[in-house]
């Protein structure tokens, strides 16, 4: 009922629909991890330039989200969760979303280069292209492992934040990249377990749809184990101190307990998936906790 205007005459979109196109809620995690990378980096950066760097990371993420919705408008229309987005609901025409996304991409990358350095700008450009081309266009419609590789796009912000300060890429931002990278599968698949029916209707090969729930639960557990190694890597490599070490150990232990519970269960009714929802919610808190601990380590124990 809401897809009729997708290809019809241009509509005058409300400015709030452009804002919605940037997925502001997803942006908070990106801004947070980017800011953590920036604050954990050694050296000084002018507060105005630091603000600009974070703004550019946010705008880049918004641009990628807009281009993602431009490409997926037809798919979004088939899912209850996404059918009310500006494009599938017909509140905006596709050309506007494309122009907005491309314009915002160039603007964020060029501003990043001018305000900080071109390495940070280059990594930002790579992360946008990775999300739009490798994830949205290439992998998402083709393989059930889509979000594993696609998760790399979401793992770039700490590297960008670090590079904005130092002009290089150190071992710690690479470790934070790996942490976010291996965190994405258990985070996302725990969500996919209880919104599975939606993805099935849209024909997207999400793991629970393609390989079944049991395989998904096993993969959640598997990636949690790899994530635990990535979380402890900064401690083992002596890149961080006691605060991060304690937070990572305790936080990851709780993560493992929750993930193990999800792994052991065989519940198929989404209405009774409380542990799965708990793992999904905790995974967000976990990432906030660990990135906060990295910064606390640098600032309090330096």
């Amino acid at each position, binding site marked *: 009922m809401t897809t009729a205007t997708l290809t019809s005459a241009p509509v*005058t979109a*409300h400015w709030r629909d452009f804002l919605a196109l940037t997925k502001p809620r997803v942006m908070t995690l990106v801004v947070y991890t980017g800011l953590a990378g920036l604050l954990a980096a050694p050296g000084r950066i*002018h507060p105005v*330039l630091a603000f600009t760097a974070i703004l550019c990371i946010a705008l880049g993420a918004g641009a990628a989200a807009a281009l993602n919705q431009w490409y997926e408008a037809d798919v979004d229309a088939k899912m209850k969760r996404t059918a009310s987005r500006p494009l599938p609901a017909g509140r905006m025409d596709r050309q506007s979303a494309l122009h907005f996304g491309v314009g915002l991409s160039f603007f964020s990358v060029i501003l990043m280069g001018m305000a900080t350095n071109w390495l940070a700008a280059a990594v930002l450009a790579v992360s946008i292209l990775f999300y739009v081309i490798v994830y949205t266009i290439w992998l998402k419609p083709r393989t059930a492992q889509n979000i594993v590789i696609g998760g790399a796009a979401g793992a770039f912000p700490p590297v960008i934040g670090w590079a904005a300060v130092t002009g290089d890429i150190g071992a710690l931002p690479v470790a934070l990249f790996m942490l976010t990278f291996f965190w994405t599968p258990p985070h996302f698949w725990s969500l996919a377990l209880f919104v599975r029916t939606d993805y099935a209707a849209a024909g997207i090969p999400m793991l629970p749809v393609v390989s079944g729930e049991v395989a998904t639960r096993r993969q959640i557990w598997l990636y949690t184990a790899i994530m635990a190694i990535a979380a402890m890597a900064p401690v083992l490599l002596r890149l961080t101190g006691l605060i991060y070490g304690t937070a990572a150990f305790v936080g990851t232990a709780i993560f493992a307990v929750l993930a193990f519970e999800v792994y052991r269960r065989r519940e198929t009714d989404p209405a009774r998936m409380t542990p799965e929802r708990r793992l999904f919610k905790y995974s967000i808190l976990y990432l906030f906790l660990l990135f906060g601990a990295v910064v606390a380590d640098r600032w309090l124990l330096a």
Partner: protein
Amino acid sequence: MTPEEQDQVRARQKSRAVVTGLLLGFLVILFFAITLAKIGASHNI
């Protein structure tokens, strides 16, 4: 297009113009601040 629809489109265009204006004003201030920060940084070297 009915007069009601036309009014609705006008209202949206106006709100978009206002938001665009505010964003441009913000960018002017931001670019000025970036310029000051850059000049200050080169001054210290």
